[in-house]
């Protein structure tokens, strides 16, 4: 079964289940796509190159017109920050952050830049009940803040803990996350601000499928310099941004237990029972009703308690 067919099927079943009177609009069924676009762009992130200068954070802040940070972008004390024992993560005020790790037995610390990975089949997108998210043909996962209700289901769903929420907005709290610089750059074919700003070219921008080759080449051509894994090639159905590293990924804070299948696959079984319940239940229970009340009065207020004590 092709992915598109499956998507339509899932959409149809949930929509059908949503309400018997809802005729889902064509729009709803056509929006987004669950297959990675063949010519979608991506970014290869080579952790071996990153020196933790935080220039990319500054670039994102400028490009996305984000609020003033708590500390300057050349303040490296942020690497020592722990929040509830956790290193920093992207928020509504910073779409990307760089963290420092100390892999076992390595001389140099390892730095890892985190931002939205622009998944091929984004969990955030599939979990959103107002369809605020879109995976664009260019490969970006963007969202429409105008329809965001603020349910934060996408934050629950995102396996990489990416989306932030403007908790401090009174009138219009919405989701905020990295958008691959879609509006200002990607749309015109230009690389994102963070990619361009990096002095070490940690990030290489290009078509995802070309980058995958480059990543494999780098691993092949530099024996011993990389662990033989491309994080994001398969994880949760593949991500637009993916990583190669010289240290095992779990030592750089990556979740290596993520399923290889897209997150939506988990939910598929449940969505599949929806049409079943919808079609079978009414007949079943009306049948029960007819059987159970056969030959009895329909009236309300009859108290048959005495003779019906135990069944």
């Amino acid at each position, binding site marked *: 079964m092709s992915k598109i067919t499956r998507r339509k099927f899932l959409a149809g079943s949930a929509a059908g289940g949503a309400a018997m009177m809802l005729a889902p609009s064509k729009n709803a069924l056509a929006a987004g796509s669950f297959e990675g676009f063949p010519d979608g*762009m991506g970014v290869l992130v080579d952790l071996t190159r990153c*020196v933790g200068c935080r220039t990319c954070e500054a670039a994102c802040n*400028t490009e996305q017109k984000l609020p003033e940070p708590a500390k*300057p972008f050349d303040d490296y004390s942020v690497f020592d920050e722990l929040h509830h024992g956790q290193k920093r993560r992207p928020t509504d005020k910073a779409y990307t952050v760089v963290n420092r790790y100390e892999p076992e037995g390595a001389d140099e610390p390892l730095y890892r830049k985190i931002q939205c990975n622009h998944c091929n089949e984004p969990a955030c997108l599939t979990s959103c009940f107002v369809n605020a998210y879109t995976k664009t043909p260019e490969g970006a996962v963007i969202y429409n803040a105008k329809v965001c209700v603020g349910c934060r289901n996408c934050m629950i769903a995102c396996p990489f803990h990416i989306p932030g929420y403007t908790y401090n907005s009174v009138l219009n709290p919405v989701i905020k996350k990295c958008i691959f610089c879609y509006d200002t750059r990607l749309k015109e074919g230009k*690389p994102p601000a963070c990619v361009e*700003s990096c*002095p070490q070219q940690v990030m290489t921008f290009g078509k995802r499928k070309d980058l995958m080759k*480059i990543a494999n080449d780098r691993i092949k051509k530099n024996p011993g310099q990389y662990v033989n894994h491309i994080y994001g090639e398969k994880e949760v159905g593949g991500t637009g941004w993916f990583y190669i590293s010289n240290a095992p990924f779990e030592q750089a804070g990556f979740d290596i237990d993520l399923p290889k299948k897209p997150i939506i696959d988990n939910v598929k079984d449940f969505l599949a029972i929806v049409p079943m319940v919808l079609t079978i239940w009414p007949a079943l229970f009306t049948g029960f009703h007819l059987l159970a009340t056969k030959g009895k009065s329909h009236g309300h207020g009859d108290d048959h308690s005495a003779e019906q004590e135990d069944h």
Partner: protein
Amino acid sequence: MVNVGKRLITGLGVLVLTSLFTVGCFAMDYPDEVEIDSLANLYEAVVFDHAMHVDATDSCADCHHHTTGTPSSSEYCAKCHDGAVEMDVVSCQDCHSGDPVSAENLHNPQPGYFYHNDKPNLKAAYHLNCVGCHQEVDGPTGCEDCHAKTEAGEKYYRSGEFAPEAAAHSSGH
């Protein structure tokens, strides 16, 4: 804000190198000092003490793929840029263009682009080369160890006079 971004793009994207790494082997003439200012925008130009690095390293090949008059030493480059042909340029920018992954190239790859898609851009060529070695030999690796921030840079990093109010910070690497 938009302007800063624009300037940044031009500054970082166009990347024209004015000073060459004019390097020869020990037999050749080479400059004692090189000012690398083509990328200067957020940071001041770097005044590179070439003579000192010549003394500190064993061979030109520690930094350069080749010198004028010798073939390329990079096995991947040498596959096409035939090992037999002597090179007449040594400047980084002659091979490392500012923007190998241009939008045009992505959508309409030029002939031969395929072989160059993983070639670092000029800025990265410098930094990977310098920082990579400095890490090994314990040379300076902090950004401002080599080049001071300009005012545009302070603004960009929100440091110095542009630092956030709240941050009583200390920076340093």
